[in-house]
């Protein structure tokens, strides 16, 4: 007889959602989180896209600690001297809220409290060491000299899944599977943020940039998200490129981004409140391991469930969805009285039909595009050159766009054959 029906390792969006759902169905649940309070070890940009939480808490948009709804999406390029962006605003986003900026210490604290209120035993400040096995079946978790037993273990460890890797449930992390995320939270007033970003009535902006000013093959994206009275500013850095260049450090890239001539004014006068770093899953569908086995399920980032195509970055919504799917599987097992492998396989069926897996399958290999020299070097330079050609008044006779474009193409010095291959790949994948 196990002490718990289910043990959940990690109280992020995946783990806390799973624990909450299971506990509200009467399961005896233990939720263990190494951070104290929950969320203190977690970093996310972060925008929570989608409506996943409504499946757990119908009134979540009123009760969860959300910062601003996203009314405004910016996607762009930064070069040494220029800012090139598409600034998309639409009434549709204001009517049907599609995403909210969130701060994880607040959100994760709220989610963990919800899990506790639902009846889970929530333990914080303790790191689980590994899984307890009996006859090739997971029967609980190990911590120190103790074993805590359960019928099921839900792994929701996040982007650095030490247990899943250590127990051989998934391969170790490679350079192309993750990126380094660094984030600052800068405090300003609500009013100043509204004025600087042209926002009102709780609306917010989510901006992502390709950092075309980086040299030596180092590649990174930058982001700016508005919270209620803070701005989250950060970078996501390709590890493989960074490893090859010994002269650039990750924090240099962060410094360059926040001091860029067209980013710095947004943050000016603000007070640095947080500075954090974390791994970001980037491996795509090929990085997703087998999601279940005898006595366990893997959810959220620890299963590599995150999506990025350079313009949209998502993860928390997939985490919540996978947590709910794992919980529903556990509830089904409990009701049927069987925790056999074919019962746990139900989780895999649910996930196969999930938006997360569908999105990731659909965009298999996208990281080759999002981290391509084309996106990070060619497009920023080319666009800058074309726009300069179009808008810079020289007093000379004006040229046609095609002429400007061809000139700019030459100016970038980018290999044409490579351009055609990468361009074709970009159109196909993105």
């Amino acid at each position: 007889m196990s002490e718990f029906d289910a043990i959940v390792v990690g109280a992020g969006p995946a783990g806390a959602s799973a624990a909450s759902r299971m506990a509200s169905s009467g399961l005896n649940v233990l939720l263990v989180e190494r951070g104290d309070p929950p969320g203190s070890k977690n970093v996310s940009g972060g925008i929570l896209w989608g409506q996943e939480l409504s499946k757990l808490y119908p009134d979540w948009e009123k009760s969860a600690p959300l910062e601003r709804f996203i009314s405004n999406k910016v996607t762009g390029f930064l070069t040494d001297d220029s800012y090139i962006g598409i600034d998309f605003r639409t009434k549709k986003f204001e009517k049907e809220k599609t995403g909210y900026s969130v701060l994880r210490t607040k959100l994760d604290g709220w989610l963990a409290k919800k899990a506790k209120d639902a009846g889970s035993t929530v333990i914080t400040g303790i790191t689980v060491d590994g899984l307890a096995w009996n006859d090739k079946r997971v029967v609980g978790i190990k911590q120190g000299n103790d074993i805590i037993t359960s019928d099921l273990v839900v792994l929701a460890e996040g982007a650095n899944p030490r247990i899943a890797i250590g127990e051989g449930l998934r391969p170790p992390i490679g350079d192309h599977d993750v990126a380094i995320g660094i984030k600052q939270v800068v405090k300003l007033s609500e009013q100043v943020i509204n004025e600087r970003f042209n926002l009102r009535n709780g609306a917010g902006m989510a901006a992502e940039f390709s950092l075309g000013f980086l040299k030596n093959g180092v590649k990174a994206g930058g982001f700016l998200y508005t919270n209620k009275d803070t701005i989250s500013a950060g970078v996501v850095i390709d590890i493989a490129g960074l490893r090859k260049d010994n002269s650039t450090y990750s924090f240099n890239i962060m410094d360059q981004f926040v001091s860029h001539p067209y980013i710095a004014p947004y943050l000016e006068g603000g007070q640095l409140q947080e500075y954090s770093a974390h791994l970001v899953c980037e491996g795509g569908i090929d990085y997703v391991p087998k999601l279940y086995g005898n006595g366990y399920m893997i959810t959220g980032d620890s299963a590599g469930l995150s999506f990025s195509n350079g313009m949209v970055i998502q993860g928390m919504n997939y985490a919540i969805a996978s947590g709910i799917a794992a919980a529903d599987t556990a509830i089904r097992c409990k009701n049927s009285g069987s925790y056999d492998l074919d019962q746990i396989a139900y989780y895999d069926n649910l996930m196969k039909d999930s938006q997360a897996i569908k999105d990731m399958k659909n965009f298999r290999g996208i990281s080759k595009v999002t981290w391509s020299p084309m996106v990070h070097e060619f497009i920023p330079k080319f666009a800058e050159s074309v726009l300069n050609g179009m808008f810079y008044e020289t007093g000379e006779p004006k040229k046609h766009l095609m002429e400007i474009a061809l000139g700019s193409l030459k100016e970038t010095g980018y290999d044409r054959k490579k351009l055609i291959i990468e361009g074709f790949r970009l159109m196909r994948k993105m």
Partner: protein
Amino acid sequence: MVLEIVVMVKQVPDSQEVVIDPVTMNLNRSMTRNVTNRADENALEAALQIKDKVPANITIVSMGPPQAETTMIECLARGADRAVLVSDRAFGGADTYPTGLTVASAISKLDHFDIIIAGEESSDSSTGHVGPGVAEFLGIDQITYCSKIEFSDGRVTAERELEDGTEVVQCPTPVLVTMLLGSNFPRMQTLRRKIDATKKGIEVWNLEKLGLQPEWVGVRGSPTIVRRMQSIKERERAKKPVTLEAIPDMVKELYEKNILKVK
């Protein structure tokens, strides 16, 4: 016979995160995380090390608001056996005198005690009064600022770090000992203990349980009040790169500016 050890702990704002409100000059606690006072963790570890050798019961006693429960649970998860939180609105705003009285009366309500261990002082007010105060209210001996304690044959042997050496003091129980910050390495909490502690919960004792009069405790029982808090601005210091050749000139300059004096 089982040795009864009491450990006094306090929940404090994490000193690394404390900010002073520039307007009110009060500590702004809303932004800070609450933690167990670090020296009290050393006190608990000292008790646990005694318990490693002889049969003992460790009771945690703390005075504080209800949220101090998290600190008590942490202490149980490290190895304490029982936790009593003395909590009542009437205790609010107490200075060190009624705090000592309140904690002492809670300890005297326990069936029995042999050794009381406290941290040298709390990181948020740094008075070091409450431990010695408790010993005085209870009328027992005290050994303060200890780096090490041992128990054998009904006696406590304690080492006190002095400026010019180490003093070894021996004392029969009952005795109160205060431990220096950093005097040992507190052991980790275990999940097993934390689950049990979380499920079991802690004991909360109020004014009535202690049988104290409201005018003896809290702000009413406090002979001192804090009139004003002031934050100190760090002075900008001049910096100059030093080269070997420039040293004589720099010394001369310091002398001329009356910073260095020659006898």
